[in-house]
């Protein structure tokens, strides 16, 4: 019998979730109060279209609305999306899934009083999908399938696609797609939102004291009637984890939305008992080791495969999950998704087999065959404990088992990114693939040498060809088959990138925080309009 525990675990988890939901809804929702939460990263700018960090999303997302969003009541589902600024059900694709018509709500106003119309949605998505020259757009590549976006009425927006794509709706639902007022873009320019805020979200901007806090207050004209429940929020900057933990422990803050390692959870629960509620979830984030293929001998697939074969991922999952925010062994697709590899499929990929001794023997043979039995590695890592430094130290130990000596250079984030993305001054670097909405077809572009966020410096025409077929696959079954081929090529045969473990999200928070449900990403469900305080 396969997965005997899963057989019982799934109904149990569903039952627990149901009872949790029932218990939660059994409480009468209370309005009022200010939610204090801690954020462990800085705000590079306020512009969601160019940023990709939780340091911006957590304090700034509550000021903005998006066209559609992940269902706040069911954020764990990778396929459950609901309207935010649109109304009714999500549009069904027309014209062979090449046309999507969104009806826009007529009761929405920006915080400065400007009514929101289809023109604002169009201006926003044109900035994201077709930015003028010199204007950055971090998620432009997610909309490769979009041919045009037009206002087909004062409150109607039509997207036309070049080809049908299952990744279109998830891409639209990304929380970074803040809707801006067209008049702001027209009068102030496309960079104004980096330093200014005018949204239509549940909260309006009060103040930002850099390095200290961001404050928002309830927006009375919010379009989801009766919400938000809170009078306001304060996002407190706390770069050190110990500080964030102490803030929750001392009730200076009620929650941290990114996640804590297991030990921190245990400490909080031990200290505060039922005053702490813990929510946990798989996380749409995977830590990767990226070999620099412009440097020898990392242009040799045997060497890269050896580095992957050295990793005891199953053992690592067991032990690292005690000390780091990583847990799940998986391939290129988010583990809980229907397109993800099963364990039977995973163990066929080199380096994912359960016989660690055999894997390492093969790794040493490959290194010897490649002429590098005593390989030395200049290993670039990011100066962030969780999970980068912990997993980095684990990687060094794993590689040591096959005779590879890695010298770790832990750099502050700006230096780390510069080495990874610009100067390419590394043999192997820690890298990651963290996405918001679970959208495997788009998420796996990370493994393409041509992707803007791939830093391995390689070209692989065969992999590109497989992806091209994947993008146009009509059915889920077809997508699944092609995805396995893509996976085997990207992380098995060629080992372009070396996946370690998928992250695991643990959010211990004060039990009086109600309404917020954990999502498989720290970017999702951060509009805060459904949170209330049971005080």
């Amino acid at each position, binding site marked *: 019998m396969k997965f005997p525990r899963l057989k019982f675990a799934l109904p149990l988890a569903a039952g627990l979730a149901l009872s949790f939901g029932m218990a939660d809804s059994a409480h009468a929702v209370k309005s009022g109060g200010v939610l204090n939460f801690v954020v462990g990263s800085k705000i590079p700018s306020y512009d969601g279209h160019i940023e990709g960090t939780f340091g911006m999303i957590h304090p700034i997302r509550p000021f903005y609305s998006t066209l559609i969003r992940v269902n706040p009541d069911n954020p764990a589902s990778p396929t459950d999306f609901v309207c935010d600024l649109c109304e009714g059900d999500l549009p069904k694709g027309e014209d062979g899934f090449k046309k999507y018509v969104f009806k826009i709500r007529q009761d929405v106003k920006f915080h400065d009083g400007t009514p929101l119309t289809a023109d604002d949605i169009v201006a926003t998505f044109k900035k994201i999908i077709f930015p003028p020259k010199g204007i950055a757009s971090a998620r432009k590549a997610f909309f490769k399938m979009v041919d045009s976006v037009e206002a087909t009425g004062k409150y109607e927006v039509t997207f036309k696609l070049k080809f049908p794509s299952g990744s279109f709706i998830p891409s639209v639902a990304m929380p970074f797609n803040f809707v801006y007022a067209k008049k702001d873009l027209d009068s102030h320019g496309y960079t104004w939102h980096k330093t200014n805020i005018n949204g239509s979200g549940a909260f309006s901007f009060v103040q930002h004291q850099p390095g200290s806090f961001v404050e928002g207050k309830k927006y009375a004209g919010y379009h989801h009637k009766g919400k938000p429940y809170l009078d306001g929020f304060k996002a407190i900057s706390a770069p*050190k*984890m*110990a500080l964030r933990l102490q803030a929750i422990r001392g009730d200076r803050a009620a929650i941290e939305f990114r996640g804590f*390692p297991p*030990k*921190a959870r*245990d*400490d909080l629960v*031990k200290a505060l008992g039922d005053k702490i509620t813990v929510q946990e979830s798989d996380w749409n984030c995977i830590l990767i080791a990226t070999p620099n293929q412009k440097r020898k001998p990392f242009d040799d697939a045997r060497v890269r495969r050896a580095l992957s074969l050295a990793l005891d991922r199953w*053992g690592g999952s*067991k*032990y690292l999950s*005690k*000390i780091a925010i990583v847990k799940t062994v998986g391939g290129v697709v988010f583990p809980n998704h229907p397109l993800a590899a099963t364990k039977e499929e995973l163990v066929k990929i080199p380096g994912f087999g359960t016989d660690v001794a055999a894997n390492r023997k093969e790794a040493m043979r490959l290194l010897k065959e490649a002429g590098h039995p005593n390989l030395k590695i200049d290993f670039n890592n990011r*100066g962030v*404990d969780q999970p980068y*430094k*912990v997993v*980095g*130290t*684990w990687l*060094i*130990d794993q590689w*040591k088992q096959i005779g590879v000596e890695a*010298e*770790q*250079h*832990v*750099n*502050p984030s700006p*230096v780390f990114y510069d080495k990874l993305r610009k100067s390419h001054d590394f043999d192997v670097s820690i890298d990651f693939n963290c996405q918001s909405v679970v959208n495997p077809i788009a998420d796996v572009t990370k493994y393409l040498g041509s992707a803007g966020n791939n830093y391995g410096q390689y070209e692989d025409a065969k992999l590109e060809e497989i992806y091209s077929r994947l993008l146009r696959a009509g059915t889920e079954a077809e997508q699944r088959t092609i995805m396995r081929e893509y996976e085997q090529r990207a992380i098995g045969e060629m080992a372009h990138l070396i996946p370690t473990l998928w992250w695991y999200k643990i959010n211990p928070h004060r039990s009086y925080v109600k309404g917020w449900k954990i999502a498989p990403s720290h970017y999702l469900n951060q509009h805060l309009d459904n949170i209330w305080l049971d005080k």
Partner: protein
Amino acid sequence: MVTTSEARVEAAFEELAVERPLLSKVKEFARKQPLGTFGAVIVLVMVFSALFADFIAPHDPINNSYEHILESYSSTYLLGTDQFGRDILSRIIYGARTALLVGFTAAIIGSVTGLVLGVASAFFGGRFDLLFQRVMDVFMAFPLIILALAVVSIFGTGIQNVIIAITIPFIPRCARVVRSSALAIREIPYIDAARANGFSNARIILRHMVPNVMAPFLIMITAFVGQAILLEASLSYLGLGVQEPVPAWGLMLQGGAEEYAESAPWVAIWPGVAVSLAVFGFNLFGDSVRDTLDPKLRSQ
């Protein structure tokens, strides 16, 4: 005929001329400077640990043992294990090697450079001295840790860069102290005599002035070693020093102290004790060396 008083003087000179055995000197030092002796013992233990770490450490300091993550004290792991299951005692023993390597290297290079520059500044005097001292003033205006942080930010992390980062702030501190002693020596007639004999500046500085400022120099070196160990630990704690998996006390504090101080306090306590003891030992030893070499203090 030799008088009685002359005989006494001769006898006294002979007594002074006879080199006493080392053991006797050590005994006298221990008797007069008990705290300094305690410091010296700590230093010797550190040096012994660093030199013979391969033989006395019970485990490989970088060997991860995931079955033994965060284990408390036991007969296998006398001081417990850290978050990677590594033996804390072994990492502390090997950490002495990192501490002393950084401490001695930075202290010696910084002090010697400061010695030469300080004596040269005093010897040449005039505009050179004026300009040189203003440059030293600039460096002295920054606290040690700030200057070290700035240097490591420019050069990057790693043991070599940490040594550079710690050495640079030491140079002006040593140069300033040595210069003040050298200024007095410069006025003594034998320096003029050396000049009159046509000796080169380098010879006068190195052969005739430097040996006469050795007392403050030696005191500064011992003080610098302790400071360097503390700085290395601080930089490593801030993530700017040596990197995992290298065993280093500051790094051990950084890796474990914050997350596990409550549930596994041994992860934080023992490296902290090691840093404190080392700095305490070097400071005690340095103070007693100063007391021994300073004629004013010696006579009291």
